[in-house]
């Protein structure tokens, strides 16, 4: 019997009792759909986190002073001179510095009302470093830095909260800061409005949010009366070389001070890798648990196939009497088992994709797009068919070994 005829015969056998076929497939459907849903959610979460990190500068090393307390002298602090020095190092693409201050609050349109501000002193390259998306106007540029200009780039969220709406007309608008440690008001002019990278803030109570404002680092240094910066952000020309570039940077910095171990470097790639590893491990474990239902489904298939063989004892006898070989009978039942699991697996894949999307949509606050890749689908199909073969082969062999004379007598 050729394969095509066997398959035709198997399909009509399987579907002669639709309810039984469905109930048999149920275990496979549940198993495959759970695994697909879980894996696609895991992939979606991984992508989501990577995107989040990208907006925060995933490809960048961050260098900070690592020792605190009395052992620090002014010499140890990071400065703009270090930026110049590090730009000369081989393998370095960009170096920028940031300085942060929480000492200021921003005046709103209501007289006497202020909101907590988080002022970031930045350099022009920082726009690239954290993938700033400008909505209106421009980012801080080198002229602003060189001249300590009182220019500011605010976020669209800040614009909404302070002015009611973010729009192009706000360019040129004055904003005012006051500090707790000095009298008087610092006036800045808005030169640009950017998309707020902290997307989770939209979900929070505005009372707890501080206004993120970017100003020239030199201007902030003057406002705070300091000469240092907090953090250096370094991008490597070849992302694969980031670890080595990092070592060079630390060495240079320590060398220039004659110290060792003064500076710490944070490679977000390590963090991301660790997080991805953990996510992958968790996904694997949960998938493994879901796969148990696949095992149960396979046992169900075997059970039903055994019953089917016994029910069809007479049919097997008839087929053998008209010339079916043992291998024909074996193939017939094996193909039936594989068809059951293949169809069950296919339904499971479709349901799993839907389920993953459904659950992904239900996760609050995070826009997670479950990702199904071709490999998962192919693997699911292969596993389904393998389940059919593994659990169908026993009953199929049993069927093929029936004695035709006994089988014909069976009723």
């Amino acid at each position, binding site marked *: 019997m050729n394969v095509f005829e066997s398959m035709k015969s198997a399909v009509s056998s399987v579907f002669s009792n639709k309810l039984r076929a469905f109930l048999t497939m149920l275990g496979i459907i549940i198993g495959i759909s759970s695994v697909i849903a879980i894996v696609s959610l895991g992939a979606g979460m991984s992508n989501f986190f990577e995107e989040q990190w990208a907006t925060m500068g995933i490809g960048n090393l961050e260098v900070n002073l690592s020792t605190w307390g009395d052992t620090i002298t002014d010499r140890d602090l990071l400065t703009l001179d270090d930026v110049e020095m590090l730009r000369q190092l081989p393998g370095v693409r960009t170096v920028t510095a940031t300085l942060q201050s929480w000492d200021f609050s921003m005046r709103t349109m209501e007289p006497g009302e202020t909101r907590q501000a988080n002022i970031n002193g930045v350099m022009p390259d920082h726009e690239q470093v954290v993938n700033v998306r400008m909505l209106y106007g421009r980012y801080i540029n080198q002229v602003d830095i060189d001249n300590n200009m009182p220019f500011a780039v605010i976020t669209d969220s800040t614009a909404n909260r302070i002015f009611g709406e973010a729009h192009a007309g706000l360019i040129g608008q004055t904003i005012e800061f006051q500090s707790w440690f000095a009298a008087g008001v610092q006036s800045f002019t808005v030169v640009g409005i950017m998309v707020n990278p902290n997307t989770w803030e939209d979900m929070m109570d505005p009372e707890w949010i501080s206004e993120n404002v970017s100003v020239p680092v030199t201007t902030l240094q003057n406002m705070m009366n300091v000469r240092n910066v907090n953090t250096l952000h370094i991008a490597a020309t070849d992302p694969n070389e980031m670890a080595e570039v990092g070592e060079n940077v630390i060495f240079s910095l320590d060398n220039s001070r004659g110290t060792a171990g003064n500076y710490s470097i944070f490679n977000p790639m390590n963090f991301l890798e660790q997080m991805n590893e953990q996510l992958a491990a968790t996904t694997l474990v949960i998938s493994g648990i879901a796969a148990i239902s696949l095992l149960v489904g396979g046992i169900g298939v075997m059970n039903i196939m055994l019953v089917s063989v016994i029910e069809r004892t007479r049919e097997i006898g008839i087929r053998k009497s008209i010339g*079916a070989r043992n291998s024909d009978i074996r193939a017939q039942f094996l193909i039936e088992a594989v068809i059951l699991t293949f169809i069950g697996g296919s339904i499971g894949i479709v349901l799993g994709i839907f389920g993953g999307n459904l659950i992904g949509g239900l996760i609050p606050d995070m826009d997670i797009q479950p990702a199904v890749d071709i490999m998962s689908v192919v693997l699911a199909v292969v596993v389904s068919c393998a389940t059919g073969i593994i659990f169908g082969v026993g009953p199929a062999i049993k069927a093929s070994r029936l004695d035709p004379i006994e089988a014909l007598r069976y009723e």
Partner: protein
Amino acid sequence: MSQSPEKSSVIMITELNKIYMQGSHDVHALKNVNLEVFENEFVAIMGQSGSGKSTMMNILGCLDKPTSGHYALDGQDVSRMKDNELAAIRNVKIGFVFQSFNLLPKLTALENVELPMIYSAKPRAMRRKAAMDALTRVGLADRVKHRPNELSGGQRQRVAIARALVNSPSIILADEPTGNLDSQSSAEIMQIFQNLNAEGATIIVVTHEPEVAAHTKRVVTFRDGVVVSDKPVERQILAGV
């Protein structure tokens, strides 16, 4: 027994014994049986239950193998063949007709008749044509799409005969073919066998009814596993007359 020199021997059974185990003791079902059947013969194998006729039929049909002795079918010794080879013999050289018809209930008449050809991997067009021809030969051309449960007993048996014919077998082996039929249908079936025999088929009918045996041309009688008589039929009853 005189034989015409042109006719060849289809079945040659020599010193055949069959012993099988039932429970704790051996049953010697067939004892040193010798039997020869020539082309175009119409033979009835008769006997009561326990006479060994069913065992003989199973061996003739290659469903079972002898314990000792030989069985040559069309000059080929099939007594020691392996399972797969026997399956091929059953497919091509033997056409079975059973007492309870043994059609597959979920297939149409046409599909039932095609089944042996599916196992010999004949192409589709050829199968269709051969099956239609066989069903026409037994007078069922207008019922080919019917399922067995939509057919009468006589019609079902005719489908079974068509199925037996479809691979042009060397022998047609019928086990109590009229056992489940009323007298009218029985007569129809025996008439079909007689027609087939007239067209050249070699037919062996296993039966315990003398009236059925009277429709054939030679009666071999078994008792206690031994051939006790082997005589031509003096006056063959012609069915449908």
